[in-house]
């Protein structure tokens, strides 16, 4: 053996997938929902989106300057800002949107160590922060295009809703949540290129349908179930928030468990809670349980028996 082999430490197999690439594909996948939001609610929606994205990116940039470690090129701040903007009502004062952006990046992400260390979804945490801080501004869905309650609130009050309009997205609501079709187009793109899979969204939606069917008081009435599915942030949450790489479980079983938990929690919030919506609270509660879920569902290594004990 005269020739010396090249010795290096693992990992030896490297994937071409980069954080940057994944974030870019998520941004592309969000474009249909964003575009529809701007079309639906007018130019002010664009202003809210721009302000939120600018505030998240700027916060990340300034924090990077301060810590002398620039992470702005991974585009995660853009995704957070975009997701946050899609979760805001169009009438929100712009400074509130900016405050939410700063909160999501500074408090939820950077102070815990940056991308990969945040224990809950920054965009959703910022949405809940704004929802608790400014309840009236965050639930005012009256704008030029629509007046009156969101379909979910109307549904909860026992009124009739137009399901066709809900699926298309011509209803009141936050900027990005109204159009099921636009969200599904983006989600299909992400699933096709392999960025997300159906484990979490699938188990989430199936559990939610079962829960609402059993406890919703309308039985498995297709019209009611479709309205519940198409209304509120369920689709946006299931495909874009719950599947966030950092805050979902990494084990396969854990992902199903996570989806089931989210479905049950969303059902409880919507049916038994005082408000008509509960997707964001359900997801950040689920985020908090992720370490526990991962601990319970840790796969057993090859060669080990049940309970992780080694064969004698």
């Amino acid at each position, binding site marked *: 053996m005269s020739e010396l082999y090249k010795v290096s430490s693992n990992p030896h197999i490297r994937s071409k997938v980069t954080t940057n690439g994944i974030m870019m594909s998520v941004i592309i996948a969000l474009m249909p929902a964003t575009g529809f939001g701007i079309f639906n609610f007018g130019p002010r929606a664009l202003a809210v989106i721009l302000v939120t994205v600018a505030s998240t990116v700027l916060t990340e940039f300034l924090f990077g300057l301060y810590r002398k470690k620039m992470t702005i090129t991974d585009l995660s701040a853009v995704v957070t800002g975009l997701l946050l903007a899609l979760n805001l009502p169009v009438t929100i*004062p712009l400074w*509130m949107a900016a*405050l939410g952006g700063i909160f999501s990046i500074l*408090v939820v992400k950077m102070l815990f160590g940056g991308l990969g260390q945040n224990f809950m979804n920054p965009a959703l945490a910022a949405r809940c*922060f704004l929802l*608790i*801080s*400014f*309840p009236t*501004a965050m639930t005012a869905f009256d704008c030029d295009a629509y007046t009156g309650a969101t379909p979910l609130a109307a549904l909860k009050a026992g009124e009739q809703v137009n399901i066709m309009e809900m699926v298309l997205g011509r209803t009141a609501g936050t900027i990005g949540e109204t159009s099921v079709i636009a969200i599904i187009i983006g989600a299909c793109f992400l699933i096709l290129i392999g960025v997300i899979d159906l484990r979490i969204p699938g188990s989430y939606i199936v559990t939610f349908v079962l829960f609402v069917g059993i406890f919703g008081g309308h039985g498995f009435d297709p019209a009611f179930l479709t309205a519940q599915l198409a209304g509120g942030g369920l689709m946006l949450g299931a495909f874009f928030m719950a599947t966030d790489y950092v805050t979902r479980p990494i084990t396969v079983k854990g992902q199903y468990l996570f989806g089931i938990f989210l479905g049950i929690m969303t059902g409880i919030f919507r049916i038994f809670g005082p408000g008509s919506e509960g997707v964001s609270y359900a997801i950040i509660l689920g985020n908090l349980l992720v370490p526990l879920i991962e601990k319970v569902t840790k796969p057993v290594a090859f060669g080990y028996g049940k309970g992780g004990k080694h064969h004698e």
Partner: protein
Amino acid sequence: MNKAGERLYNGIVKENPTFVLMLGMCPTLAVTTSAMNGLGMGLTTMAVLALSNLFISLLRKVIPARVRIPAFIVIIASFVTIVQLLLEAYLPQLNKSLGVYIPLIVVNCIILGRAEAYAYSNPPIPSLFDGIGMGLGFSFALTCIGAVRELLGTGKVFGCSVMPDSFVPIRIFGQAPGAFFVLAMLVALQNLIKEKRKKAGKSYEKIGSGCSEDCMNCSDKGCSRRFYDADAGDSRKEEKPAEEKTEQEKSADLEILNLEKEEK
């Protein structure tokens, strides 16, 4: 610096019960919805802390080590009762807004902690000033947290509007999550200031109070051993012979080992 002044400085800055020792978190987070509530809670605690420290220190030679915790609680509870009756009589508004947290001062860990760590083993006058210093530190911290939360949550400080009319209150700061945010930010801020001043050459070494070790990593030294060691008696006197004994045992063990080696 004389002993009394040193205790005051220690309580307010070096070992601030809220920002450094992280004790008494329950009232810290619960009652600081306004600066006034924070100040009221802090001063009430200070009165109890100073008096209980003084009396425990006076009685330290009479209280047997085995039953000292119940004895401390009885002394503290008496003072809390007195203070609560006084508050009810003269400051009913404050008493109402602090509610159940006044009787809960009995189980405030700052008070029990100072009794255990300082007053039980030090003379009365330094103990009194230790209580006052810790109480002032606690009041200062609670007033700061209360003021920030009141400012952001309602736009007022001590009940006076200070923000312009266009200010929209950020309601989360008036609620429980806001208390955690503000506490974390203030702790971070005071750590930052201390780090800077440390670099400038100012000493922030803690003055040994009680065992002066950190309680989290304390296993067998300091005060925790007194909880488990039933024969502790007056622990401080017994510590030395116990150490000598172990040294003797060690040397005996070594001798046995040597003998075994020789046999082999």
